[in-house]
């Protein structure tokens, strides 16, 4: 069974229909504009545990939804 994401428009659909999108976060501790650009361009949160993300329902309604996922298990705790 593949993991299901509950699209607010289409209901529960298999994860394979969606495209992952990261919500980029550049830490406030980075103040030099060049460091901030570098971070925005290349660096990732890559969290190991519960996190909030945006997923695009590519093979469906083609709209974005917000998803809470635990990246250790792929368990999805909330979508909306």
């Amino acid at each position, binding site marked *: *069974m*593949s993991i299901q994401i509950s699209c607010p428009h289409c209901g529960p659909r298999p994860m394979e229909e969606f495209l992952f999108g990261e919500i980029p976060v550049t830490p406030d501790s980075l103040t030099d504009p060049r460091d901030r650009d*570098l971070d925005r*361009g*290349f*660096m990732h949160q*890559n969290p*190991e545990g519960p996190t909030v993300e945006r997923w695009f329902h590519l093979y469906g309604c083609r709209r974005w939804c917000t998803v809470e996922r635990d*990246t*250790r298990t792929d368990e999805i705790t909330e979508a909306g």
Partner: protein
Amino acid sequence: MNEFVERLVSLRWAEPKKSYDVVIVGGGGHGLATAYYLATRHGITNVAVLERGYIGSGNSGRNTTVIRANYGIPEAVRFYQHSVELYQGLEQETGRGLMHERKGLLWLAHSEMGARAERARAELNTAFGADTVYVERDDILRICPQLDLDGGGVWPVRGGSYHPAAATARHDRVVWAFAEGAMARGVDVAQRTEVTGLKTDRGRVVGVDTPQGPIHAGHVLSAVGGHVTSLVSKVGLRLPIRTHPLQAFVTNHYQRQFHPIVASADLLFYASQTARGEMLIGAEIDRQPSYSYRAGHPFIQHCAHRAMTLLPLLGKLKVLRQWTGVCDMSPDYSPILGESGIDGLYLTTGWGTWGFKAIPAGGEQMARLIAEGETPELIAPFSLDRFARDRTLADRGSSGTH
């Protein structure tokens, strides 16, 4: 580690001491090889390798063991060619049977564009020291008679490149051989020892935290595979890494006649035969970043379908096992190794889906860097600061995923 293995190799586990010259976090191939080369090439043996599970429990014991040098940029061809050569001498050097077998790798092209890319690969490889030739359909069929060159009528083979030096080796034996060689020279390897934090003093990394207590270190190497972001975030270091699952599967036994490794860039799969006669199939990473070891049916479905268009023999076989590893993917498909930008902390990461072949050269070069304090030329292009210097190394040659 079971009794059988302990009889096969003589592994002596250690209780970590309070302090070492070098602490290596992660007992995968890269961590253990670095320890091995520190001991054998530089006489540095006051070294600990700390592994939270058992050695080889990460990707080094989960990969499809393709060893090759037919990459897409000069820096990579040079580096991987060196590693291919180190592998060729590794059984003799370590005195251990590693089931190293030269197989040759066919990279198939299904379009004019693809054929041109394979011609370019052959030229580039030859220019930088790796042996790759362009091959026509007749040659391809001679190398791999099981191929359907019509690609099921959908993906006809136009041509391809052939890399005779490509090989495979038994992955966990490689891990054990490096562990054994390091231990025999006095390196401490501790299993079930998780590093939970990094100790710093005035901006320098000076040790690690473990549930059993802190351990002081002159140098710390992060060799934790897909878990690198979690480890180095302890000192605020940000990396261009995303962790993606990569799956593979084997079928039941096929008559032992399938010699080469076959890959298709368009169909994104590769196949070889294991010593047990299983057909071993790999493909590309799961699209979403994740640390989950879940292995799923959609992967087998897609991958088997594509593989069968070129290898109809697979249609008669059954899936025997499927598994997953979590890979440290870099944005340019090149590894990230060398200094971290924080004193005392070194990185070997970004090995993604292609780092098994790199274990000997990666370990050798990291050992040199730590021992001599200067980045060796062979790995200088792969340092983390390439992103800030606008010198990324986009390599299509590794995006064949193995």
